[in-house]
């Protein structure tokens, strides 16, 4: 009985020892295997590693070169854009200037604030032997127009006809001729500009208004908003 028990315990202890041994062997085996697979590299793998690394370096170099190129190209694009913007600005300015000059030349309809001057012949005066003394002459018109231009009018029209840089006004008996079109009295001279400046320029003491009134001409001046002038018809 006791012998058998002893044998049994013997087996149990032996199996315990065997468990420990097996555990240790397997554990050590596994660790070594891990180490081997981790730490050791075969020649082939080494060569592959190196070639891959070289490829990587090559790629990075090309990347850097391309990046540099990209930066240069971007800089170029930016320059182009700046140039285009400048050109666009120039064109815009040119277009604006062209429009402005067209307005000055009377090629297009213009509209603005200004003054209206009406020159009418004086009342019939039987005491006056020369009727020329109270008629509106072209030099009166000249005076008014010149005064208007001097004081900054940008566009002037007589009875709705725009004057240009080479307009002419001549005395034609009872009428005056402006660029070939005849206009009878009363003459309505409209001018676009700063109304206050134009009015005070005409009203100045001893100025155009006084001179015209001295010549027995009925002079009326009124400031007007939204004067519209049609473009010059016909030649030029």
């Amino acid at each position, binding site marked *: 009985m006791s012998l058998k028990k002893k044998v049994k315990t013997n087996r149990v202890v032996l199996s315990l020892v065997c468990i420990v*041994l097996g555990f*240790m062997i397997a554990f*050590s085996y596994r660790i070594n295997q891990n180490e081997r697979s981790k730490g050791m590299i075969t020649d082939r793998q080494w060569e592959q590693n190196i070639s891959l690394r070289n490829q990587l370096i090559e790629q990075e170099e090309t990347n850097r070169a391309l990046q540099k190129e990209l930066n240069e190209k971007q800089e170029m694009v930016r320059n182009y854009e700046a140039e285009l913007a400048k050109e666009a600005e120039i064109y815009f300015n040119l277009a604006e200037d062209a429009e402005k000059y067209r307005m000055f030349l009377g090629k297009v309809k213009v509209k603005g604030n200004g003054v209206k001057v009406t020159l009418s012949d004086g009342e019939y005066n039987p005491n006056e032997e020369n009727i020329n003394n109270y008629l509106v002459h072209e030099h009166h018109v000249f005076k008014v127009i010149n005064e208007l231009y001097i004081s900054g009018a940008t566009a002037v029209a007589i009875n709705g006809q725009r004057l240009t840089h080479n307009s002419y006004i001549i005395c034609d008996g009872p009428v005056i001729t402006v660029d070939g079109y005849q206009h009878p009295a009363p003459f309505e001279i409209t001018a676009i500009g700063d109304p206050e400046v134009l009015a005070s320029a005409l009203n100045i003491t001893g100025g155009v208004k006084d001179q015209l009134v001295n010549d027995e001409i009925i002079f009326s001046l009124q400031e007007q908003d939204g004067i519209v002038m049609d473009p010059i018809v016909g030649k030029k």
Partner: protein
Amino acid sequence: MWLPFMGLVIGVIIGLLTDIRIPEEYSNYLSIAILAALDTMFGGIRAQLQNIYDEKVFVSGFFFNILLAASLAFLGVHLGVDLYLAAVFAFGVRLFQNIAVIRRILLAKWSSNGEK
């Protein structure tokens, strides 16, 4: 006789399944411990065959040798002397001796059986 073998198999399975990570430098100690364990195992087998087997001696020798071998290796690492070589040498020589004795005994048994 099957129980120890089963124990060995179970131990191997546990060892393969456990996922304990130990630092690389300690794997040396484990190797030395395995050597000691193997030596003790074969010593036990020889003792059994020579009928001088004592369980207490065997079990205490098994664990004590393992610990001794591991601590020797540990000491060697810290002293800068390759002391684990001593363990390897001692256990290795004894391992071979034990195996040789086991072989002779088995051969004698076999030849005596054959003669019968």
